[in-house]
């Protein structure tokens, strides 16, 4: 079974802090994704990576950056956390071939106070 593991289920941080969310997948998938999930807005793509050190901006990259130094690990960084970044963050991975499902982690509920 594919396993995508997010380092924290719940995280509380202060405004202005630098926040790191970590994601690890164990299936040697080329693609990795970071989404945020908000009620009524569904899943919105923040960043996508198709290979080590490669990244593409998604729909809402402002205020975020990412790092992929190893194939299995994809980190989301909030450079200076703000209250409007309070949300559920979901990481996913997939094979690079078309029609391959995205496998999601169980999410990190991040609160910025």
């Amino acid at each position, binding site marked *: 079974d594919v396993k*995508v593991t997010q380092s924290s289920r719940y995280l509380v941080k202060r405004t202005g802090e630098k926040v790191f969310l970590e994601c690890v997948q164990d299936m040697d998938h080329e*693609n990795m*994704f970071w*989404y945020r999930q908000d*009620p*009524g*807005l*569904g*899943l*919105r*793509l923040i960043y*996508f990576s*198709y290979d080590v050190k490669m990244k*593409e901006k*998604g*729909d809402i990259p402002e205020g975020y950056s990412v790092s992929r130094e190893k194939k299995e690990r994809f980190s989301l960084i909030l450079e200076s956390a703000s209250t409007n970044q309070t949300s559920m963050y*979901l990481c*996913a991975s*997939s094979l*690079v071939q*078309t*029609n391959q*499902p*995205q*496998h*999601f*982690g*169980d*999410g990190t509920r991040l609160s910025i106070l």
Partner: protein
Amino acid sequence: QQQVKQSPQSLIVQKGGIPIINCAYENTAFDYFPWYQQFPGKGPALLIAIRPDVSEKKEGRFTISFNKSAKQFSLHIMDSQPGDSATYFCAAGRLAGNMLTFGGGTRLMVKP
């Protein structure tokens, strides 16, 4: 601006009913339309997917209907069960690409 619009936002049906969730997309380049199911406390998981060369696809009690001219697709759940209570997301993407655009989600409750 949401490129994939999903309705309704929430839905309550009795056990055995047939909930229907609708999605509409704008980008005519989309040619891959998956549905994901999410249970509380879990990440979404692929449920069923369709390509626009077919108008309907069934997997067990789940059916996708696709109307290319209207740029709409829908999920029907036959003989719904309380265990189907979850949030459902439609999505759209390009087969040649890797990214998906998700709808806003539908929270389904199936009452016993």
